[in-house]
């Protein structure tokens, strides 16, 4: 660890601040200002009069000026106070922290499947641009882009669970009869494996297959398209032509091209990961997955604004963290990216 690397990392950390500030402003505007009157809504129960509403407004700070309200709001967030959910009765921060690993597990599983299938297809298409295989891949990508996640999920359940009984019941992360393993990473599949609990591992893995497959089908088209684009660019470059002219074996040439396509590929995975965090909402609903997306939807239906607002902030924070990681990995994958910039 030298000084220039540390200052590079620090500068990168500073660049995600605008996203976090933007997210805070966004949730403040959307969740606190747009709803007609949160106090009137909360106090709409029977036996609540104008005095109760006024008291609630004072308690929520709604009688102060906007900048003061925003300041109070940001202050609470900085202290980890995301408010209380009146659906679960718990602090929102606690609820989200418990559910976040389930969502991340799903997104990671989906991304992994999409990468394992999509990258070889994209590379093969880039090797023979314009071929029948390339055209078929492109058609597949267009078709994949037209498939809504909820349609895929719903019919995967019908086919694999109802018709063929291959998949376990689409209700949550693990069989309700099994006790969950001790939480280490929060990823149920990994935790059960660490605990050596093979029954729990099999159940958790089995229940992950269909939802991650749904998520993967979402990501497959962009993975394939972007891998192809990155490889076409790399293969068209001078060093590849030189390597071919030198008579290097194809395997080696391909490796050089892949190494150089590394940085754009890492950027692509970062983009797709954040896109999948949005797709999570729908997939979690279809599979009754206990993640933050399902939590936000439940909150939404009950007009539980603290829950929805907490969800948006967490997603923004995860997104910022992923972007930071992408930046750092790109610097590692491509030494030409200047660290001073």
């Amino acid at each position, binding site marked *: 660890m030298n000084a220039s690397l540390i200052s590079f990392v620090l500068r990168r950390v500073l660049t995600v601040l605008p996203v976090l500030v933007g997210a805070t402003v*966004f949730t403040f505007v*959307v*969740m606190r200002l747009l709803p007609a009157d949160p106090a009137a809504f909360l106090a709409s129960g029977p036996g609540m009069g104008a005095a109760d509403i006024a008291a609630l407004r004072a308690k929520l700070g709604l009688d102060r000026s906007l900048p003061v309200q925003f300041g109070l709001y940001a202050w609470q967030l900085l202290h980890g106070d995301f408010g209380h959910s009146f659906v679960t009765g718990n602090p929102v921060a606690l609820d989200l922290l418990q559910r976040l690993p389930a969502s991340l597990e799903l997104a990671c599983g989906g991304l992994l499947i999409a990468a394992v299938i999509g990258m070889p297809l994209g590379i093969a298409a880039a090797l023979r641009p314009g071929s029948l295989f390339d055209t078929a891949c492109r058609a597949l990508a267009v*078709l994949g882009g*037209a498939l*809504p996640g909820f*349609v895929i999920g719903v019919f995967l359940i*019908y086919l694999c669970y109802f018709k063929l009984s291959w998949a376990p019941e689409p209700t949550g992360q693990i069989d309700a009869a099994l006790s969950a393993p001790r939480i280490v990473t929060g990823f149920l599949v990994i935790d059960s494996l660490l605990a050596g609990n093979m029954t729990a591992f099999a159940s958790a893995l089995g229940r992950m297959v269909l939802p991650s497959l749904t998520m993967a089908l979402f990501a497959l088209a962009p993975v394939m398209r972007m891998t192809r684009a990155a490889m076409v660019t790399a293969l068209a470059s001078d060093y590849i032509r030189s390597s071919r002219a030198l008579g290097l074996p194809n395997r080696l040439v391909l490796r050089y091209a892949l190494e150089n396509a590394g940085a754009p590929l890492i950027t692509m995975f970062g983009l797709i990961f954040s896109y999948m965090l949005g*797709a999570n909402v729908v997939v979690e609903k279809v599979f009754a997955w206990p993640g933050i997306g399902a939590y936000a939807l439940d909150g939404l239906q009950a007009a539980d*604004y603290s829950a929805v607002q907490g969800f948006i902030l967490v997603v923004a924070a995860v997104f910022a963290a992923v972007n930071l990681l992408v930046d750092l990995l790109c610097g590692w994958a491509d030494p030409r990216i200047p660290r001073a910039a």
Partner: protein
Amino acid sequence: MKYGSSALLLALFLALAIAGPAVAPYNPLAYALADRLQPPSLHHWFGTDALGRDVFSRTLAAARTDLPAAAAAVILSSLIGVSVGAACGYLGGAIDRWVGRVVDVMMAFPLFVVAVALVAALGNSLTNVVLATAVINLPFYIRLVRAEIAARRQLGYVMAARLAGCGHGYIIGRVLIPNIAPIIAVQISLNLGWAVLNTSGLSFIGLGVRPPTPEWGALVSDGAQYLLTGQWWVALGPSLVLVLAVFAFTLIGDTAHDLFSPRSAR
């Protein structure tokens, strides 16, 4: 073949949306409890749902909800996005930097989540679903138009227009925008597909239309409840039509892209 088939698909969908009620075999809202959950047959092409309503008629009627909603969202976001993007690209400077920053932050969020939050805050109605869809598509137009205009503002024909005494408004509206119209057209047709996906996705999770109103995402969500008891047809018909509609728009966008940028077509 590709041009023909995509145009044909689009024409089919427009015709169905316009002629929908006239050709629908049943009233999409009429209950017929005696005919509940019938599998597809000659009388009911897509079967019937739990209230005996004809799924085919409902799917047809839903085109009249989804297509105008998607079109309205795309018109709204393209009008605002093109104006803002053109202003930024042409003027540059502080406005450009600040708008660019806001757009970056917007793109930073998973956009579907932004749409969910907007509908939650504004109130659960179809109008707000359209508004939210328009908002989340804005950054794409702003970025695209900004970049294209910025690349052209110093070109000879723009200089000539300026020397001829044309005002900035005239140069943006009558010289630059017509020059990038094909690029905007491609974006609009791709965008229509996303807008349909977004509208139906929001409806699937319960945002947007109110129950008896037929809408593709809501129809799939409704049918999903009967999948696990074996009545697959309630969800299948609307799913297929929805996928076909999005596919048609994507294909049109792809075709338009090939037509307007022959150099990048392979």
